[in-house]
């Protein structure tokens, strides 16, 4: 069973994401801040992270960069979720090393498809 870490501080979206991923057969854990995510990642070793950009204290870009800076975590796929849809933000996400950048609101089907694709399950 592949593992997915959801990093988002908004409970209302987390409910859906958690349900969605669980329904699709993934083992899901939640982190509600960047700090929590960085603590959790080395132990949990998820296959993929759904990472929100707007997190308190430490934003998603920083968390992404931090993970990408560590070799042992290099296999982890990262999808950034954000309400910031401006070109500059998308560029910023790519620069941080995200595998994909999904703008809210998104289609749940497409998100699931993207997750599958990145995990080579399709």
């Amino acid at each position, binding site marked *: 069973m592949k593992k997915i870490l959801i990093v988002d501080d*908004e409970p*209302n*979206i987390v*409910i*859906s*994401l958690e*349900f*969605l991923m669980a*329904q699709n057969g993934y083992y899901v854990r939640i982190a509600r801040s960047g700090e929590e995510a960085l603590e959790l990642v080395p132990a949990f070793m998820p296959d993929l992270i759904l990472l929100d950009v*707007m997190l308190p204290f430490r934003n998603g870009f920083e968390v992404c960069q931090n993970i990408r800076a560590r070799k042992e975590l290099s296999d982890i796929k990262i999808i950034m*979720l954000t*309400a*910031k*849809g401006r070109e500059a933000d998308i560029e910023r996400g790519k620069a941080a090393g995200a595998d994909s950048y999904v*703008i*809210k*609101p*998104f*289609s*749940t*089907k497409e998100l699931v498809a993207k997750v599958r694709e990145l995990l080579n399950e399709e």
Partner: protein
Amino acid sequence: MTYKRRFITGILIILVVPLSSVILGTLGFWLQLGPDDKTFLFTLIDHNRIYIFLSFLIFTGILGYIAKWMLFQYFIPLQKLAEDAGILKSAERLYTIETKGAKELKQLAVILSRHAYEIKELRENINEKIRQAKNDLEEEKNILTSLVSELNDAIIICNNDGKIVLFNHHAYQLCDDPDADDFQNRIGIGRSFFKIIPSEIIRHALEEIDHKFRQGQQNAYTQLVYPLPSRVSARIRIIPVSKGKEKIGFIVIMHDITAELDKDLKRHEMVESLIDTTRSSVAGIRAAIESIISYNEMQEEQRVRFNNVILEEAKRLGAFVNETIANYKDYFKLNWPMEQIEGQSLLNLLHLYSKTISDLKLEVKDPENGIWVSVENFSFIITVLYLLRQISTIAQNTISLELNNENNFMYLDILWKDGILNHDQFNQILANPVDLNNVELPFSANDVIQRHNARIWLNLSENNLHSIRIMLRAADAVTESVKKKQIIYGARPEFYDFDLFTSDNLDEEWETRRLASLRFVVFDLETTGLNPSDGDEIISIGAVTIVNGKILSDRYERLVNPRRKLNKVTTEITGISDAMLQDQPALDKVMPSFHAYCEDAVMVAHNAAFDMRFLKLKEKQLGFRFDQPVLDTLLLSASVHVTQESHSLDAIAERFGLTINGRHTALGDAQVTAEILLKLLPVMQEKGITNLQQAYQASKKTYYARIKY
């Protein structure tokens, strides 16, 4: 004195030469004679002694008469003629020369008088021409200054040294920091603009313009945004001023964009947060709904959770929209170029243009006085005319037009009797393009109403009196802008001084600069007493600035808390009481602004030794140095009017016919001292005192200069 001595010498020579020749001749004759002849001569003289005595008397008499005749006919009249000729040269009024001397001298006097008359005529002629030319120039300058002062932008013109030559009220307001009590950043004629914007920035801008110019760009200028010391963000345009090929200065046009920037920033902020929040909420709702739809067999508990998510996010979204509208309502306003127009004028315009519509009988009711509306004249008037034309095709009788003010909204009503217009027709009229003389314009009445943030509706009444009502916003900003204008009129000492363009080089030594080109700060102190070393303190400082022979409106006046009681005499003389000083700042708070005010200027005071002693004593304590040159009007007056007895402020003022407003107030005394200096400067120039060095030397020479400071 000298002419008397010359006269006496002349007389003596005249007397001595013939007398001594007679005596010498007689002596030679006497020595030649033998003893008998001598005896004979004695007898002869003895017999005729009366004749000899008489002839001697007659001889001296004639000599004396000749001397007197020469004295009154030639010596005295000649002397007077010389003096008169000297006066002729400098006299303002007509001066006639008369003489009682010899005929030739009388002729000379007539010739001189004639010349004097001609000189006077000529001088008057020239003066009149100069006056005329000055008036013309002054008038042109006045037109320019009023023009500049009425402009909506802030304008400052500077010479190459950054000295301000002209500025307007807007510029003053923009640069003035109301919170700061110092003259550091205040603009004024002759003050340096580089305190507002550093010279490097201006130079850079001018170089850039030069570069553009060399590339063949005409009318080149540079624009930049710069935060002024008054914490105003200004859009600044810099344009060089040229005289032929030579650059002699630059024009700075400033526009306050603080509000604009703030508005842009707020708008940006609003858009960002609107996008982000909406996206997050919609994402939550969409994900929840899609989950519910895709997973029908979902547990009840899970479904309730999703329902709650949807409800919560939908509420959040609604609340957020309301919040945004409340927080940013000022930033939703459209930036349509509205103009404020008085109700009566608007109706007059409509009435005037409505005459182009055939078959229209329009009656315009006069609105209340003082009603103002905010409209974009062109589109609004065209639209109302368009509506009138549409109504005129259905109305049977006269159409009337009214403008009313109700609860801060303006209602423009088009009223008519008989002739039905149904709501569909009305909506069609509003949606169709507005046409003007059968030419369709690229907007509809709806567009125009929307742009004005106005509302329009149709009122159909049962008694056949129908109306179209347009609800407009009242122009609330009118009073403010009218007030602003009045301030400009009231405060138009907005000087210019174009002579600054030809000012001396700044780097030249103080000493050798022409007095006329210097910036003077003329000041006066009121004190608790006469001895600063015994603890007497400054209680008031007044100062005015002179640039190019003009006293500027930029005056300095401060009361100072001496932190000690005043004695009765001080209060009597100065009119300043303890109570007046109680809440005033102490000297250490006042001195920075006074020091800044005096910067780059020669300090001038009447009996400067006294005032400088007070300032010098405080220098160490306050950490300021007044090391610029100091001039004393008392010494200067004494050096040019040697024969005058008194050089007190009152005496000099009276001599020059100046009135003192507020004697023994610091500003009053400073003002009159400045006026005295302006009177003294030309007199000094005549005496060859044209620079500071010479002024110092002249001051030192005078009797009073023994007091050292």
